[in-house]
């Protein structure tokens, strides 16, 4: 892929999580080595083998998670690694503070150099990170999802700083997946998807709806063959559900949805609009703040994951490596991960390996998992086969409702097709499927009904026939 950034400009790098934005920037900052290709800086090809090389060139990066030392002062954090010392090797606090004050004044980055970092708000800590990069002579500043942790007022302050910097001739790469910000702050926009640049544009030539579409993808997916849905009884019912995220902010706001037997309900939306919290609440991994969840007539609002699965939920988590499978365990063990302790896989507390292996062999065949056998470690399978393993396990329990979160993320085309076919098959057999995907095309081609979420709310619901991709793109961008 190619990317060109000009001096005196804010270049927004837009894409979903996992689109490759951060990886690309880590290459530029010397944290990750590129397999091939070259980086040209200020007209010269450069080799960046480490962050030290990048800093020497004048490249600075502000990571999503700050790299500050909380008990030290602002000035100490800023000069760390480049300390101003007196002749005796003692840090010259007065001069360090003066230098930091001078820098912060120049760019409007108000901050008290003598304050301890741990006493500062997140927004101010971010300023310290930016100061740190500037102090080391950064002229190209990479900001990785800088607004993710900021309040609206802090975002405003950040934008002022960004404008002051580019006015001074610096270049900024602004990584984000928030569309409104891009339109507001960027001079140039590059949209990435699945590791490739899908478009380069400017705020004037584009708009939020178009960017949303570009970000979640044009029809690269295969058309899915499926018949008419024959919806039956309501299996999963969410009523006025509200869920908080880890920072106690409302992530799911008063959502009511129903999934019927024999239908696929798709949730469309740009990532980070409450989908994760919604999924976790249903799966019993996060306690809702208010509202109810009923599964097959049972109230599972406050049920543990164990009871929720018991009540008839199949759960395909979005993060395969962290939650879907145990990389260090064999395929067979992974296939019975939620049922290893009951018959026929165990008697009393003793595991029945023959039963596990027989079952695994059957599932490997049915779900076309390419493996050397049930004893192969799950971590050594390809991504597609790992995902087929998860799908096999969750469908294998014959749940009433299958909760599929990003079921084909990072999976090869063949496996995508296979997984899609299986989801439709299960639907036809009367399962209810709740599909959460940030791939709009996946939702549009699989779902019988589509619910669009924006900022934790369901902003619209469509029957598949009425679902219009442009209209949904607008809704996903918050333009209702």
């Amino acid at each position, binding site marked *: 892929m190619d990317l060109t950034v000009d001096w005196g400009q804010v270049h927004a790098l837009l894409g979903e999580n996992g689109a490759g934005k951060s990886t690309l920037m880590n290459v530029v900052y010397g944290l990750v080595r590129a397999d091939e290709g070259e980086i040209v800086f200020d007209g010269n090809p450069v080799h960046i083998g480490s962050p030290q090389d990048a800093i020497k060139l004048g490249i600075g990066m502000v990571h999503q998670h700050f790299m500050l030392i909380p008990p030290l002062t602002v000035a100490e954090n800023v000069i760390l690694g480049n300390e101003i010392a007196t002749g005796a090797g003692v840090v010259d606090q007065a001069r360090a503070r003066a230098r930091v004050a001078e820098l912060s004044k120049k760019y409007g980055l108000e901050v008290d150099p003598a304050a301890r970092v741990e006493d500062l708000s997140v927004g101010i800590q971010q300023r310290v990170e930016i100061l740190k990069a500037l102090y080391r002579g950064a002229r190209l500043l990479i900001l990785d999802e800088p607004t993710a942790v900021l309040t609206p007022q802090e975002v405003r302050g950040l934008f002022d700083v960004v404008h002051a910097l580019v006015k001074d001739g610096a270049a900024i790469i602004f990584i984000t997946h928030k569309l409104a910000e891009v339109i507001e702050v960027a001079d140039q926009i590059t949209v990435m998807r699945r590791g490739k640049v899908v478009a380069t544009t400017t705020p004037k030539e584009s708009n939020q709806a178009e960017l949303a579409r570009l970000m979640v993808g044009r029809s690269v997916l295969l058309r899915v063959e499926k018949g008419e849905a024959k919806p039956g009884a309501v299996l999963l019912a969410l009523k006025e559900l509200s869920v908080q995220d880890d920072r106690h902010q409302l992530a799911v706001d008063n959502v009511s949805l129903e999934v019927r037997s024999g239908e696929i309900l798709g949730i469309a939306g740009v990532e980070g609009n409450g989908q994760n919290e919604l999924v976790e609440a249903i*799966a*019993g*991994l996060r306690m809702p703040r208010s509202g109810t969840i009923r599964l097959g007539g049972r109230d599972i609002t406050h049920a*543990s*994951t*164990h009871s*929720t*699965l*018991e009540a008839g939920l199949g*759960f395909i*988590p979005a*993060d395969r490596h*962290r*939650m*879907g*499978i*145990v*990389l*260090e*365990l064999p395929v067979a*063990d992974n296939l019975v*991960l*939620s049922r*290893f*302790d009951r018959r026929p896989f*165990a008697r009393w*507390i*003793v*595991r029945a390996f023959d039963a596990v292996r027989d079952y695994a062999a059957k599932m490997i065949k049915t779900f076309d998992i390419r493996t050397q056998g049930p004893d192969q*470690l799950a*971590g050594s399978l390809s991504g597609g086969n790992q995902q087929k393993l998860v799908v096999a396990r969750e469908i294998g329990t014959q749940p009433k409702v299958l909760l599929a979160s990003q079921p084909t993320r990072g999976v090869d085309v063949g496996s995508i097709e296979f997984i899609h076919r299986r989801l439709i098959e299960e639907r036809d057999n009367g399962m209810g499927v709740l599909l959460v995907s940030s791939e709009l095309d996946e939702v549009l081609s699989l779902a019988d009904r589509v619910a669009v979420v924006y900022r934790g709310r369901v902003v619209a619901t469509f029957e598949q026939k009425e679902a219009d991709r442009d209209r949904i793109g607008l809704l996903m961008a918050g333009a209702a």
Partner: protein
Amino acid sequence: MKLDRAMRARLFAAVVLPLVSVLCGFAVASVAVLLTGSDPLAAFTALFQGAFTNERAFPETLVATVPYIFLGLAVALGFKAGLFNIGAEGQFYLGAIFGVLAGTSLHGLPGIVEIPLALAFGMLGGFIWAAVPGLLKARFGAHEVITTIMLNYVAFQLTDFLINKGPMSDPHSTAPRTQFIDPGAQLPVLLADTRLHLGLILAILAVPVVWFLIERTTIGFRIRTVGFSQGAARAAGISVAWTLVITMGISGALAGLAGADEILGVSHYMPASFSVGYGFDSIAVALLARSNPWAILPSAFLFGAMRNGAAFMQLETQVSSDLISIVQAIVIMFVAAPALVRWIFRLREVPVGGIAITQRETAGVTSET
């Protein structure tokens, strides 16, 4: 013969790494002996004699090996769930207190009843002492390294309170100690005129039991799954909190069994200085065995031999018995940092599962203490 990568990695982790670690430990210790102006060869010869060839040396080495087996298994089990149970020493004490309690109060029962009861009582003591940190971690996220260390001190002081003119002290003795346990509660001696007792057989039997627990039962599967990936365990409906509590509990029960066994088999009462670091050494035993229950046997034997031989070495060559602490320290260092061994011996890296596990275990220590 050309071994494939996975085999090479496993061989390195299971055999080469521990052997090299032990050899390096002795090498560094020799330098220390040289620096103090003594002869390392003489010191190690005496160590060997004291551990194996002197009269009654070998049975005594086995006597010292017994608690190391139980305690090594206890610590290893914690590692399987990603837990660092540094409290084995305290749980060892609690097991002894509970063992003495049973052994001094259940009069008139036949040994075949009283002995298992007293041992079970010891396990209960250790279980309770370890389940508390497990609960604290599961409920409040309190790190088990901190809480188990703290509970060690509580255990030491509790012992002191109980036996020093306290409720459990022997009224007929001027020394701070408990009464002797019933003769019927004493573990039978295996070899006449030695202290080698039935506990050795129990310890050896504990190895397959723990192995079976870890590898063949649903509880062991929960423990390993939680150790590998708490996220995946949670998503599959495994209760991580329950697993952490139960793992700590079983780990503590094994340590408690060691304590009760030591009372019933060796001392027959509880003295003021009951243990001198058995529980702490057992962390090294488990690390050297890489948490493999079978490997605990040779690992515990090595530590038992060193502990037993050290006294004779000090007597014979005036080299301090603390020398074996140097060996132990170096062993831990090398086992914890396999990259160091590779670097020293220019071995090429084989990045496969087994090795990553040690790194994670040690990462837990360095980042959290």
